[in-house]
């Protein structure tokens, strides 16, 4: 006798059970840290809800319409489990503590300052890049469609960092940009930028895009999508400046050193446009003197001037060039929206400047820049942002005196990273227990 076809409800029940067991096991096996066990518990709750729903027996005498509606709902549950599975894949390979704990804790506390109950998960990636994974956002759509009446109980920020740089603590200042993406997602900053600029600007933009792209609707749509993504990147850069100040700018500059053409955008806005926007925001916040030359190896290249659209270029290039022209119309709104979000919460440059030399003295003497002893026996502690900035500026300004101690560059960088980590740890202990 031929086997009967599997019933949709049974399939969903089986998948939900396996999903629940997998995440429960994951919490035990991969994440001995209470923090990650807590994150892994979220999908367990979702799987349990799906299981409860899928276990409800069909009513007796169910007609064809009701059965069809029920089956459609079961398919939504199955779809939801697929998304949960993608989160599993991320968590399974996540290494929140591959980035040393004091950085992870600093980032986590930074996120929670701006996103109540927000949690971040970090994962090493083979690609040499820092990125924000929108997976958590994509899980909310099927959640809404499933009609379970729940959403992820905790905003989840999934970040990737280059695996080979896991111990390069200074470079992780770039994660402030990824935190910016999380803020954008949670607070809807990009949309707020477009709303702030207004319909009149949008109409002009659309009209100019039509004109630049010869009224090719598909290309105009692609350009509008890219414009929205670029605004998201610029808003995240500006958030990075407000979160970490000069350290963020210096880390970004270093990361961009290998750009082939810093004037050309692609999935991201042109590097020089980003650096100049960062520079202008640093000026606004009165932190620019610590960064000196924020444009790195391209001091003489004009960046904010929009390019001329070349008629002979490919459609992709024409879209990018058109977007480059239009995004300029949103720069002021980007600044306004981010400044409003950080109103009164930006990293305080005025608190940093008077202690900068004391912190440099500590670093010169191979001491974590966490606390200075005064002559009366009292000690001064420093904020995490001060510590990260002290280390970056010490590094970027040449770290005088270190060469005399016989360290090669790699050793100096590694030592500086260790001193920064220890200082962040000490500061956290002082703040909580001191």
């Amino acid at each position, binding site marked *: 006798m031929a086997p009967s076809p599997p019933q949709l409800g049974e399939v969903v029940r089986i998948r939900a059970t396996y999903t629940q067991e997998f995440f429960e096991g994951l919490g035990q096996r991969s994440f001995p840290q209470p923090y990650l066990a807590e994150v892994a518990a979220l999908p367990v709750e979702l799987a349990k809800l799906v299981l409860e729903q899928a276990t409800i027996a069909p009513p007796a005498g169910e007609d064809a319409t009701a059965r069809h509606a029920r089956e459609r709902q079961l398919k939504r549950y199955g779809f939801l489990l697929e998304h949960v599975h993608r989160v599993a894949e991320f968590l399974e390979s996540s290494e929140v*503590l591959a980035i040393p704990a004091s950085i992870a804790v600093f980032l986590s506390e930074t996120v929670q300052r701006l996103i109540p109950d927000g949690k971040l998960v970090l994962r090493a990636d083979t690609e040499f890049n820092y990125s924000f994974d929108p997976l958590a956002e994509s899980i909310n759509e099927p959640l809404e469609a499933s009609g379970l009446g729940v959403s992820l109980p905790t905003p989840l920020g999934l970040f990737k960092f280059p695996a080979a740089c896991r111990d390069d603590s200074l470079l992780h200042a770039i994660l402030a940009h990824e935190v910016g993406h999380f803020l954008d997602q949670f607070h809807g900053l990009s949309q707020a930028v477009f709303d702030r600029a207004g319909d009149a600007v949008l109409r002009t933009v659309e009209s100019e895009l039509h004109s630049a792209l010869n009224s090719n609707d598909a290309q105009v749509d692609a350009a509008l999508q890219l414009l929205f993504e670029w605004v998201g990147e610029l808003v995240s850069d500006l958030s990075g400046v407000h979160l970490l100040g000069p350290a963020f700018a210096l880390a970004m500059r270093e990361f961009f050193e290998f750009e082939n053409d810093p004037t050309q955008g692609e999935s991201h806005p042109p590097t020089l446009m980003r650096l100049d926007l960062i520079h202008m925001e640093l000026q606004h916040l009165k932190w620019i003197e610590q960064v000196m030359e924020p444009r790195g190896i391209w001091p003489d290249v004009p960046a904010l001037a929009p390019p001329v659209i070349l008629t002979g270029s490919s459609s992709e290039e024409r879209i990018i060039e058109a977007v480059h022209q239009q995004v300029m119309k949103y720069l002021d709104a980007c600044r306004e929206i981010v400044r409003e979000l950080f109103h009164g919460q930006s990293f305080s440059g005025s608190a940093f400047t008077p202690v900068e030399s004391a912190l440099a003295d500590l670093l010169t003497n191979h001491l974590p820049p966490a606390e200075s*002893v005064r002559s009366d026996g009292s*000690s001064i502690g420093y904020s995490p942002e001060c510590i990260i900035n002290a280390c970056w500026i010490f590094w970027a300004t040449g770290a005088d005196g270190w060469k005399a101690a016989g360290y090669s560059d790699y050793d100096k960088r590694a030592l500086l990273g260790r001193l920064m980590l220890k200082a962040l740890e000490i500061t956290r202990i002082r703040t909580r227990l001191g």
Partner: protein
Amino acid sequence: MSVVSRARLVKLLFNTTSFSERLVVMPIIDPARQISDGSVDVRLGSYFIVTRSARVGGLNPFDPQAILSSYQERLYVPYGWPLWIHPGTFVLGVTLEYLRLPQSLYADVTTRSSWARVGLNIASAVAVHPGFVGCLTLELVNAGNTPVAIYPGARIGQLVFHDVPDAAPAESSKKYAAQIWPQFARLSGESEELEKWKHL
């Protein structure tokens, strides 16, 4: 060498602004409890190295081909959470405190008696030389016959300080300098020295 008094320790820790003369123990969360005559209590840090014994038949630290880090695994335990050490087990830990000794001081690191009485020994290599900079690697062994839970943040050891008479400014060894994690052994670098002994 004489043991340093509490009053002098306080002066060296908190009332000495010259970097070269200052004793650094960072952070000291509870000075009244941590500093006593001759000694400063130190706490257990969060990072450990445990041995993956199933992967190797034995350990020959002088084998130049041996990569000690492949036998050993770094482990992070959050503050306030336990790490269980089973009887006879050896684990490398680290002090929470970052230290720097001036040239005029030498220290011994020892287990606090309360922990020693549950079978724990935290240090076999007890000497901390003048000029040492960094967190101390601790060699943790459960010498008792019952598993013992240790907790990052717990006051587990003490540094007993001694004056070094006629201290000369000397370049301290950089082998383990300014570390904040427990360090894998680096004995393989000394295998050349051992080679000479074969010719005796």
